[in-house]
């Protein structure tokens, strides 16, 4: 079987369309990184400073420099705080060039701002936040009740987070406005590209013999129809490798270029991770690198499930483009079905436990505030449910294929 899997993998790797799609995906991701103005300007400033010097390089810092709220004892130069000294100099039209002073001032402002954010976060009322989400989506009746049932778990997690993770800090060149850029837009792009390539190559490989009219010869050979098992394994291998490749080249490039080691070991749930109204608080105490690993793991699970679904569909319809369209249609339908369910029905909430919701909502994986579901176990429940459904479909597809009379269709 191993040799046959190798031969099937060679088939995919000999297809130009595979490389075309892969390169387009890389170019698209590269373009995204290049066009992300915030990140680019941030990188320039970052590259001018050295670790472990902590330098505030975020655009938002400029706005927050105007804030007066200070939770800790401010640093002083004589009677005045550093900020007051700096302001006084500015008012007189003087420019302070003392590097040590400026460094201290930066760190002071950095710290003040951090404390302010942390206190703001700590003041959040969980039940009010849940009601806000209920109102935002117009939920009533059982749907609202289903969300409200998560309040105790949310409160428990929130209090731990505020006590342990939120107070941490890190080299602040990274996470503002980057969570959505990295884990939202870029990760979503990587995942969607991988899913599309996965569907195409799996459908192509499974339908290969019929489309080349070699099925009679192949299925009457020693391995027989079990060649489709080899094709399934090959699809898993190529799809997973494609995803890992895109992930490493895209997400890896982003991390290598735009983040620092001090970020990697900091908590994602730190108070710094705020983008406007979005609160990125994880259900579990993940550091940045741990969260990246979780993203990789969930993404890989999705890819595996998509391979299985496409393989099963292709066993029924031995035509690449029909099978591809069918799988894409299924994922699309799973995504839009909630739109047709009453907002008072708890079915609306459960209808979001789909692969499609996962694929689109990468920024909110394992996050506490993620719209329709506030379920701490949303991700693994969705993956498990999908695995069961796809497993059943695959089982019947395989059984149907094994029993079917094979005749070449003209």
């Amino acid at each position, binding site marked *: 079987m191993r*040799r046959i899997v190798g031969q099937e993998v060679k088939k995919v790797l000999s297809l130009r369309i595979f490389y075309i799609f892969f390169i387009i995906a890389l170019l698209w991701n590269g373009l995204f990184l290049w066009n992300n103005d915030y990140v680019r300007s941030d990188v320039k400033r970052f590259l001018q400073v050295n670790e472990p010097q902590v330098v505030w390089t975020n655009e938002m810092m400029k706005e927050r420099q105007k804030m007066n709220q200070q939770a800790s004892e401010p640093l002083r130069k004589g009677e005045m705080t550093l900020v007051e000294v700096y302001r006084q100099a500015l008012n007189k039209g003087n420019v302070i060039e003392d590097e040590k002073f400026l460094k201290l001032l930066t760190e002071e402002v950095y710290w003040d701002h951090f404390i302010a954010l942390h206190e703001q976060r700590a003041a959040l009322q969980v039940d009010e936040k849940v009601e806000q989400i209920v109102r935002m989506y117009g939920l009533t009746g059982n749907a609202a009740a289903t969300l409200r049932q998560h309040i105790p778990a949310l409160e428990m997690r929130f209090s731990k987070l505020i006590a342990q993770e939120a107070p941490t800090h890190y080299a602040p060149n990274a996470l503002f406005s980057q969570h959505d850029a990295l884990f939202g837009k870029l990760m979503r792009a990587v995942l969607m590209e991988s899913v599309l390539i996965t569907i195409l190559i799996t459908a192509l490989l499974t339908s290969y013999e019929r489309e*080349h*009219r070699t099925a009679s*010869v192949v299925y009457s050979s020693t*391995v027989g129809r079990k060649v489709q098992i080899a094709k399934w394994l090959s699809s898993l291998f190529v799809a997973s490798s494609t995803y890992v490749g895109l992930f490493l080249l895209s997400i890896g490039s982003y991390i290598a270029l735009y983040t620092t080691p001090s970020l990697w070991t900091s908590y994602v749930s730190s108070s710094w991770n705020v983008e406007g109204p979005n609160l990125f608080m994880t259900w579990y105490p993940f550091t940045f690198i741990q969260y990246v690993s979780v993203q990789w793991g969930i993404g890989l699970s999705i890819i595996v499930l998509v391979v299985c679904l496409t393989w099963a569909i292709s066993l029924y319809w031995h035509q690449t483009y029909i099978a591809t369209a069918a799988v894409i249609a299924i994922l699309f339908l799973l995504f839009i079905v909630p739109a047709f369910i009453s907002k008072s029905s708890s079915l609306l909430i459960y209808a979001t436990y789909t692969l499609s919701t996962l694929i689109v909502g990468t920024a909110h994986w394992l996050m506490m505030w993620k719209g329709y579901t506030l379920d701490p176990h949303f991700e693994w429940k969705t993956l498990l449910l999908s695995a069961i459904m796809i497993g059943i479909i695959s089982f019947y597809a395989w059984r149907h294929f094994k029993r079917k009379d*094979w005749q070449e269709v003209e």
Partner: protein
Amino acid sequence: MLTIDHVTKSYGSFTALEDIQLTLSPGVYGLLAPNGAGKTTLMQMIVTLTRPTVGEILWDGVPIEALGSEYRARVGYLPQQFGFYKQYNPEQFLHYIGTLKGISKAQLREQIPTLLEEVALFDVRKKKMKQFSGGMIQRVGIAQALLGQPDILVLDEPTAGLDPKERARFRSILTKLARNRIVLISTHIVSDIESIANEIIMIQNKRIRYAHTVPHICQSLQGQVFEMFVPDDRYLSFASEHLIVSERQQTGGMDIRFITTHPVQGAQEVPPQLEDVFLFEYRDEVER
């Protein structure tokens, strides 16, 4: 020994084959029948692409369905419509099929060049098959069927697309192979198998009409096959009264070979050939 035991194949309300009973031991078997008679259906059941609706096929007394891959390892199959991978060369294609057949790399390294020589494709072994002619593709098909030295060779219209020289070469290959294996060939070209087949199987009305040696089958028309010269002005009336199996244009008329149960004055009785029997038995289908 391959036994086809009271096999019937139906597709819904349509019956393709009915109560087929055959026992095949090493030798060449020619499967003769017009299009749509069920030859391909029978072959597909033998190579496990389809299952009988009733009855079973056994190899040395064991149902082939139960044997599974153990049985398929003994089978070489060339389908009527032989597909291929355009971007592969014949060496790569044979390597792939050989891998599916469970043949080791070492054995493939030995067998592939030999087979390509046999089918006169060794010189183009590195050329992509999309550049091949129909006859060359067919020869690749024959080569892949021979991979692994199968005990059962099932060839559906193997000489389609081959020129006379290639067909002669093919007959020679088969004669060598048939010593120790079962070779089942379906063809419309009677001459391809008449000289090499140990037994001819003819299917008519979904059942076996004949399963016997060529001389025995030809015996059925003994005394009924004649040849004579028919002038042009009599040809049409003659053709409407008798079954003509072949004709050759001459000056002023035609040399006709025909079948009749009533002696015709001036006609010379000739020994019946397999083609005569074929055309006689399937005259209704031919007319259709």
